[in-house]
């Protein structure tokens, strides 16, 4: 696949391409020193750019078509992954995947939204937008984890629960509500990681955890900037403003005390270096699990309840 470059990244990519070119054609010319100097300059520029992204730019990175998805992380971080299918009521939803796997010394249940890479696989994965059976499959797998006393890891990356006719007929609202209800009292640790897009109830439907982490370039909110713009500004044109207003990035959510921790990504975003992104995340997961598995079931349930009870700002 050709490299996809976002608008705001273009100047840097152009410079990097030039450096490559210089190197290729330098031949006997003694310009290596010059090249290194420029390279360092570009790196500085890059650091400045990525440390100072607007909220909308982060939304774009979270949606980057080359961004690693749940299965990429599973294959890079775990061993012996056995994917399990179906909700046992209706069908197998391809936009949520899950199964048992081994990460370091932990046997875990790992569940996440799954997007596709191209048109064909996106249609297959329904663009990462689950139908009710997706949430019911996720819940079935979580119950299985509870039965065998294994921690649950969920990975969130969805533009939203699918707003379709059949989804409504099969109870999209009930499926999400049921997951919130059941996850809050699951007797094993739940570790939630937002790895891309966290759009509303479709994200939260697998997002009630003891610890909620967010990769650096993600967004998580009650609505997408586009839909927010169309409702409040009555036009699709105000997505940048909507993104700013919603305060939906990882630093924002940490600030709002709605997530516990930000997981760093390689410079330029997780898509620039899958291996590095997965290595960082794996290390963090092991750290978190080491702590979580020490807690007793009652404590886990109590902590989760208390954690979400505290969320909200109001005046009395």
């Amino acid at each position, binding site marked *: 696949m050709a490299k996809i470059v976002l608008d705001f990244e273009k100047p840097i990519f152009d410079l990097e391409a030039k450096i490559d070119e210089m190197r290729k054609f330098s031949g006997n010319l003694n310009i290596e020193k010059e090249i290194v100097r420029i390279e360092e300059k570009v790196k500085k520029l890059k650091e400045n750019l990525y440390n100072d992204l607007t909220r909308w730019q982060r939304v774009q990175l979270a949606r980057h078509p080359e961004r690693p998805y749940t299965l990429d992380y599973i294959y890079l971080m775990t061993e012996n992954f056995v994917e399990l299918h179906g909700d046992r009521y209706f069908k197998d939803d391809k936009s949520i995947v899950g199964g048992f796997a081994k990460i370091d010394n932990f046997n875990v249940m790992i569940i996440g939204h799954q997007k596709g890479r191209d048109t064909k696989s996106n249609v297959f994965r329904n663009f990462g937008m689950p139908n009710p059976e997706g949430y019911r499959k996720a819940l079935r797998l979580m119950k299985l984890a509870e039965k065998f006393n294994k921690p649950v890891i969920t990975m969130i990356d969805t533009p939203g629960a699918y707003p379709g006719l059949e989804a*409504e*007929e099969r109870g999209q609202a009930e499926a*999400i509500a049921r997951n919130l209800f059941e996850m809050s*009292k699951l007797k094993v640790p739940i570790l939630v990681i937002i790895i891309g897009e966290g759009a509303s*109830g479709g994200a939260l439907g697998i*997002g009630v955890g003891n610890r909620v982490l967010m990769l650096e370039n993600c967004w998580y909110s*009650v609505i997408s900037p586009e839909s927010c713009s169309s409702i*409040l500004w009555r036009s699709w044109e105000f997505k940048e403003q909507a993104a700013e207003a919603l305060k939906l990035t990882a630093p924002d959510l940490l600030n709002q005390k709605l997530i516990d921790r930000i997981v760093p990504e390689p410079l330029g975003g997780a898509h620039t270096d899958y291996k590095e992104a997965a290595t960082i995340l794996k290390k963090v997961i092991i750290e978190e699990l080491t702590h979580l598995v020490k807690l007793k079931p009652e404590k886990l349930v109590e902590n989760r309840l208390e954690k979400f009870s505290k969320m*909200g700002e*109001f005046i009395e």
Partner: protein
Amino acid sequence: MSWFNRSKENISPDTMKKDIPDGLWEKCEGCGEIIHNKQLEQNLWTCIKCGFHFRIGSQEYINIILDKGSFREMDKKMRSADPLDFTDTKKYTSRVQETIKKSGLYDAVRTGIGKLNNIEIGFGCMDFKFIGGSMGSVVGEKISRLIDRCYRYKYPLVIISASGGARMMEGAYSLMQMAKTSSRLARLAEAKVPYISILTDPTTGGTSASYAMLGDFIIAEPQALIGFAGPRVIKQTIGKDLPEGFQKSEFVLEHGFIDIVTPRKELKNTIFNLITLVS
């Protein structure tokens, strides 16, 4: 000029004019019938002709469901804090201020303890006229506290929903109210306290995808819009017209997601029946 002295029955008014003092008239959205406010109120804001259920507020439901004068309100003056300093075409704080002034309410839900045929219950009722009945931090907190009160005193819980969903102007805070309320309900369920969820027009989005759909008993008023995504969004997604009656109470009943469709007039009795049957 005999054509002037009409005496046809079909154009005579249903009630004599002298019976109705000056006041407001309402047009029924269902059949177009013009009904006087007083008459509408007597009929619990349902059309005298076609039975159409008008949207009503928390005060009306308090009068309909609870024994007279028994409602003791909790957290009455809790207000939104605007945690995101949110501005769209208008500042969120001014939007809230204006709505408080216009509606006489402090947010989109009222909660408290009241009596239903002398049984003490926890009672929550949403108001659609407060920013579309949207659920933000205040709604989430008030509902959660109500659930906790019911947990502590074993009061049966009744919540009447009327909501377009989560409140956008509170971003992720609103979203988390879904998890917050649902987790409190999970605890209530462990204590085996009955929870009756009443769905009225409309109950969609984050509200339906949390406490509204988690009742031990789910009752809907006739013809209420109930769903996750709004019909306009679904129509856009599938690019087709939606079938007749899609997402209406009767449709949702048919698909197995609610227990009963009950006319407003029988609501109190149905709730009473269920509570006594399980206690």
